[in-house]
C-alpha cells in the first residue's frame, strides 16, 4: 500500500505528466481560439457569475461550444496538482544542498528559482480559483451625482458625489470633441468612516479586496450617470502577490540564465 502511494505521488510529480498536460492545454486553447467568436456573451458572463454555476448553465445551453473551456479549467487544475507535487518532492533536497554548501550560485540555485516560479504559479491559480468561485459581484450599479447610494454589503455603501467628463485630447481628427472618459468622485462608507476616491475609466479603485471599476458612462453632455462594476474578490491578493513574485523570480531566472551563458560571475 505504501509503495502504491509512493508510486502515485511520483506519477503526480512527474515531468512527463506535466508535458502531456501542457500539450493538452495548448490543444484545447488552440481549438478554443476558433470557438470564441459567437460565444463572447457566454464567456464575458464569467465576469458576473460563479465558475461552477457558469459551467453548468452554459454547458447545457450551448453543448459542444464551450467544452474547450471546461477542459481547459480541468487541465489547469490537474497541472496545479502536478506542480505542487513536483515542488514538494524536489525542493527539500535542493534547499538542503544550498544550505549545506552555503552557495547562492550554480545549478542548485537555478533549480530553486524554478520552484519559486512553480510556487508563484500556484498562488496565481489559487487566486483565480477563489476569484472565479467566491467573489461577490455587483455587475451593474448605475449612479448619478448626489443620487441614491448603493449598498455593497453590511459594511460598505457607495455613492457618487461629482462627475467630470473628459474630452479627447489626442491627434486623431475623428475622435476630436468626443467624451472619452470620466472622473467620478465616489463616497465610500466603510464601517464608521467615509472616504472620497476619484475613479477613472482606465483606473480602478482597489480598497481591501474590493475592486470598483467603471463599465460605462453617459456620452451625452447633458446627462450625468456612470455604471460601475464592483467585485469583492477573495482571490485578489493571492493572484496579485503571486504574479508579482512570478515576475520578480522570472526576471532573476532569465537574467541568471543569460549571465550563465555569457560567462559573467564565473570563477576559475
Amino acid at each position, binding site marked *: 500500500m505504501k509503495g502504491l502511494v509512493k508510486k502515485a505521488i511520483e506519477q503526480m510529480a512527474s*515531468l*512527463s505528466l506535466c*508535458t502531456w498536460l*501542457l*500539450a493538452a*492545454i*495548448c490543444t484545447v*486553447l*488552440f481549438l*478554443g*481560439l476558433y470557438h*470564441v*467568436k459567437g*460565444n*463572447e*456573451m*457566454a*464567456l*464575458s458572463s*464569467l*465576469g458576473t457569475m460563479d465558475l461552477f454555476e457558469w459551467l453548468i448553465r452554459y454547458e447545457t445551453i450551448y453543448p459542444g461550444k464551450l467544452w474547450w*473551456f471546461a477542459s481547459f479549467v480541468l487541465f489547469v487544475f490537474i497541472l496545479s496538482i502536478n506542480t505542487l507535487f513536483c515542488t514538494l518532492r524536489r525542493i527539500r533536497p535542493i534547499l538542503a544542498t544550498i544550505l549545506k554548501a552555503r552557495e547562492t550560485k550554480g545549478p542548485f540555485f537555478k533549480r530553486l528559482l524554478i520552484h519559486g516560479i512553480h510556487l508563484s504559479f500556484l498562488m496565481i491559480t489559487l487566486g*483565480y480559483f477563489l*476569484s472565479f468561485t467566491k467573489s461577490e459581484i455587483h455587475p451593474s450599479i448605475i449612479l448619478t451625482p448626489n443620487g441614491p447610494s448603493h449598498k455593497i454589503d453590511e459594511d460598505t455603501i457607495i455613492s457618487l458625489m461629482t462627475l467630470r467628463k473628459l474630452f479627447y485630447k*489626442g*491627434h*486623431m481628427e*475623428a*475622435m476630436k470633441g468626443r467624451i*472619452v*472618459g470620466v472622473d467620478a468622485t465616489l463616497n465610500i462608507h466603510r464601517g464608521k468612516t467615509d472616504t472620497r476616491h476619484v475613479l477613472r*475609466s*482606465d*483606473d*480602478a479603485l*482597489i480598497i481591501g479586496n474590493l*475592486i*470598483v*471599476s467603471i*463599465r460605462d458612462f453617459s456620452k451625452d453632455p447633458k446627462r450625468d450617470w456612470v455604471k460601475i*462594476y*464592483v*467585485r469583492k*474578490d477573495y482571490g*485578489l491578493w493571492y*493572484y*496579485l502577490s503571486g*504574479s*508579482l513574485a*512570478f*515576475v520578480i523570480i*522570472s*526576471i532573476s*531566472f*532569465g*537574467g541568471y*540564465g*543569460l549571465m*550563465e*551563458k555569457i560567462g559573467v560571475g564565473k570563477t576559475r
Partner: protein
Amino acid sequence: MVCPITLQIAALLIAAGVVLSALACVQWPTALLFFLGALCMGLNIFETYIDHWPYTPMYMNSRLIVLFLGTLCPVLSLCGKWDSKAHGLTIGLTMLLFTSATLFFPKDYYMPNIRSASIWSHLYSLADPLGRAIFIASATDTVSGNTKSPLMELAFTFFAIAIFSGMLFSINGLGTPISFHQPEVIGFMFIWFLCLLISHAQWARFRPSLFKALNVSAALLTILVTIKFDLGVWRPLW
C-alpha cells in the same frame, strides 16, 4: 494617418536580406539589412504611437515582432552566434511574412480603446510581442543545433512581465483579472502555454529530432496566431 513608405522600405530591405541569406555568400550584411528594415519598421511604429497617444495602438504585434527580431540580428552577429543560412533564412522569412501581412492586409481602421491609456496597457503591448519575437528566435537557435537556448528563458521572462501587466490592465479597465471573451487573450494564453511546453520539454527525455520538430512547430503556431489577429482585409498600402 500613418505614412506607409517606411513599411515599403522595410519590406524591400528585409527581402534583400533574405535573398542574400539564401545565397549564403555573406555574413554580417544580412544582419545589417534586417536591422535597417527593423529601423524603418520602428519609425512606422513610432508614428503610429504618436498618432494614438495617450492610448495604446492595437494590432501591433506583427510590426513589433519585426522590430524586435531585426534588432536581435546584429546582437546575435556581434556575439558570434549568427549563422547566415539558418538565422538569415528563418528570421528573415518570418520578418518578411509579418511585414508583408501588415503591408497588404493592414488592420488600422479602428477607434482607440479608451481604457488603454495606462502604463500597464503600454507595458503589456510591448512585453507580449517581445516575448513572442524571442520565442521565435529561440526556435531558430534550436534549428542551428542549440537545444538549450538561453533565449527561451528570456522569452519566458518577457511573457511573465506581459502576464503581470496584462492582469493589471484588465483589473483597471474591466475590474476582472482576466477576460476570456477576447480571442486575443486566448491567443496570448495559447502562446504562453506553448512556451511552457517547450521549456519543460527541454528537460523531458525527448529525442533531439523530436524536440526540434516540437520547437519549430511551436514557433510556426506562434507566427500563425499572431498573424491571425493582426490581419485586416486586402488593402495594399501603396
